[in-house]
């Protein structure tokens, strides 16, 4: 199984967002889980990120309107958490864990290798929009350090050779 690329909708498309019937029915289902609509905010944001690839201002406005919140409130929540993309992400977001167990088991080596191979470091992306590197905190998989999360998937016990094989596979992935 290979990690699916993120398809980030372009900002133009997300200027004004209207949820289609499929999204509406999923949101309606989520709302049944909670006593108040606001509690569905995180799940609805996840739904949007899956659908559009990122949380554009237009998405925040649509979510706010649907849940009876202000856009500013939604933005406040979105930006508190690290996992919501507020700009269009690359197709593959490489989240390299840099916390202690990974750090002492080769995370630095992975970052150096990524720098050599892709020419980018944490906070940067390749010009073709294929890869983006993010240095992240403990991913809860320290026993198989070092760990990199690519989009939704964990890759564990990595070393530069395994990382190379992974990057080759991802770069070759079809749309």
């Amino acid at each position, binding site marked *: 199984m290979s990690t699916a690329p993120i398809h980030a909708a372009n900002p133009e498309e997300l200027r004004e967002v209207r949820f289609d019937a499929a999204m509406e029915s999923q949101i309606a289902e989520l709302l049944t889980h909670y006593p108040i609509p606001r509690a569905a905010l995180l799940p609805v944001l996840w739904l949007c990120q899956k659908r559009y690839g990122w949380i554009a201002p237009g998405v925040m406005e649509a979510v706010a309107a649907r849940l009876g919140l202000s856009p500013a409130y939604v933005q406040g929540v979105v930006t508190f958490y690290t996992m919501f993309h507020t700009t269009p992400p690359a197709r593959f977001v490489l989240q390299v864990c840099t916390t202690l167990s990974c750090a002492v088991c080769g995370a630095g080596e992975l970052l150096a290798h990524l720098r050599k191979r892709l020419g980018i470091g944490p906070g940067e992306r390749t010009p073709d929009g294929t890869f983006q590197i993010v240095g992240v905190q403990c991913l809860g998989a320290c*026993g198989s350090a070092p760990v990199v999360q690519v989009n939704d998937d*964990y890759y564990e016990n990595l070393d530069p050779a395994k990382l190379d094989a992974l990057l080759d596979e991802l770069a070759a992935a079809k749309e």
Partner: protein
Amino acid sequence: MEPTLLKARGLEGSRTLASYLSRGGYEGLRRALALGPQEVTKSVIDSELRGRGGAGFPTGRKWTFVPKDHPGPRYLVCNADESEPGTFKDREIIEHDPHLVIEGIAIASFAIGAHTAYIYIRGEFVRWANLLEQALGEARREKILGADVLGSGYSLDIWVHRGAGAYICGEETSLLESLEGKRGFPRLKPPFPAVVGAFGKPTVVNNVETLACLPSILTRGPAWFASIGRPRNTGPKLFSVSGHVVRPGVYELPLGVTFREIIFEHCGGIRAGRKLKAFFPGGSSAPVLTAAEVDTKADFDACAEAGTMLGSGGVIVLDETVDMVEAAANLAHFYAHESCGQCTPCREGSDWLVDILHRILAGHGRAEDPDTILRICRFASQGMTICPLGDAFSLPISSIVSKFRDEFERRIAAATPAPPRKHPVLPWAGPRPGFGR
């Protein structure tokens, strides 16, 4: 010891309901429903089970804090945030035995009278959230969950709620804020969640591993559970061992084994024939222990006596090659990144620590730095903050400075003065009069 929590690890198809039922699954819930809430709570009190999430609070006692006569709903929340560095045990349970977690949630929910429960799982755990969703789907289809749990008339819904990347949301009141669709700012306690929790209603928050202990307490009895370990420190415990050991991973062992046994017997000792230097016994928020303290027993009270804590049971092992100043800087960075920013001692203190530690690493340490670090740590702990994150960085970092002060001083002795900064910032201007007195 025969595994209880990791019984399913290595079994073919262990995640399915069929496999779980074939291993006696949901028998504990059946017994609980027959016993009634009070008897279930009594069994859990008698088992002396203490929370596996970090604080080690007696689980049965926590349940009794839920007001009996409170009108309206109450909630059970399963804490699957698992974001304490060095901890990866809840993921292991979910990976192999999601129904064990669901059964535990159902038992606890029944005991406190909740009809809705949430599993708050960290956002990164997409795969494990999906595994839980699949298992919940099976349980709903087979009428183990829903309007009539196992034909008892008791109703229960369990929903998975994904976080979105924030260590602080593992702290129970921050978690509740996040569950309510807000930023994860911890709440002042009291009131405690058992009285005013999710949506203003009485709520019990329990860790995945705590809940996973419940089915066997009901099927095998509290006396069986209490026979493992020693009084007040009973039952099996999962230890997540990471860092420089030969065989890192999750180990299920009775509370009270020594760290020597964990590190040198179960995990095969230190990698590459090197020597043990230090280890964090209970996640990165626990004060560090040195190689000389490796005979400490791994249970709540023994760790407290040794001046540290069992925490989540995440054992981070460091060998002789690790520079403890770097280790301190790495952790300071983690906590500075994860501080929610509500309290000055935590927000500013953690950033200040990062500044000082990085300055020492850059070769510009000053003689007063170790004491400044200790003072910042004193100021950010001892109840000076809304939630215990202040303690969570103060205790380990001050323990590193206290126990490995020579490493700091060696760097400082060889240091050169820092080049003047273009824009001086207060924390760089040296200790301020009155701070921390």
